């Protein structure tokens, strides 16, 4: 089976990940899924009131993979999904660098959209990654945000 979860220092190739989502595990093209949704998160230049120059991503080795897998399994039990792929980078990242990739295929667009959002909302609250930013006022640990907690909690009602 293809790798579903990767936690890695190296960059990822969006085009290759998209092509992999379209292919069956035997290499033939997946023609039963009509919808592919992808999310990419990037290092942006402004956060929590300050200019950002770069960041370092710390993680809890082993638990990150486990937490991401639990989230994907929860999404798969909630929606009929085809393929799911999650990549999260760690280490030093520069402005505009890619941080995270989530890609989901499904027969129907609703399921693909919701599952991708669900995975990101839970990743933001449950996967043990921490960002330390280099800003115009020095280094600082990013503060967790209430809106991310709320984004995750809405799935409890759904």
């Amino acid at each position, binding site marked *: 089976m293809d790798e579903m979860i990767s936690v890695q220092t190296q960059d990822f190739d969006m085009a290759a990940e998209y092509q992999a989502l379209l292919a069956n595990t035997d290499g033939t093209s997946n023609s039963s899924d009509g919808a592919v949704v992808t999310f990419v*998160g990037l290092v942006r230049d402004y956060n929590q009131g300050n200019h950002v120059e770069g960041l370092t*991503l*710390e*993680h*809890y080795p*082993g*638990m990150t993979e*486990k*937490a991401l897998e639990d989230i994907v399994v929860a999404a798969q039990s909630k929606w009929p999904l085809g393929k799911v792929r999650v990549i*999260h980078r760690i280490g030093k990242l520069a402005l505009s660098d890619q*941080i*995270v990739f989530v890609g989901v295929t499904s027969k129907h667009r609703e399921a693909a959209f919701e599952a991708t959002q669900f995975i*990101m909302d839970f*990743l*933001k*609250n*449950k*996967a*043990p*990654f*921490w*960002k*330390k930013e280099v800003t115009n006022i020095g280094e600082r*640990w*990013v*503060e*967790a945000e209430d809106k991310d907690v709320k984004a995750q909690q809405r799935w409890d009602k759904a």
Partner: protein
Amino acid sequence: MIKVLFFAQLREQLNCAELTINLAEDTRFTAVSTLEQLRTELALTDDNWQSCLQTGKLLMAVNQTIVDGNQVLKDGDEVAFFPPVTGG
């Protein structure tokens, strides 16, 4: 023996990434049975540990799963304390 890990700003504030504790033999910890009791005992180390570990926002994991303080600890467990996560 249990392993205790600290991450991110908590690791920096404590200046400690990892501790090993022998629950059965280390006299300081022989009364510790739950995760919350371990946290309370570790917080007694000094004022710095007290203020870092007694914040309500801290997350706790045992064997790489987030749990609450009622979790009973057993030999061989991997315990982790960390601030709210900020990946993605």
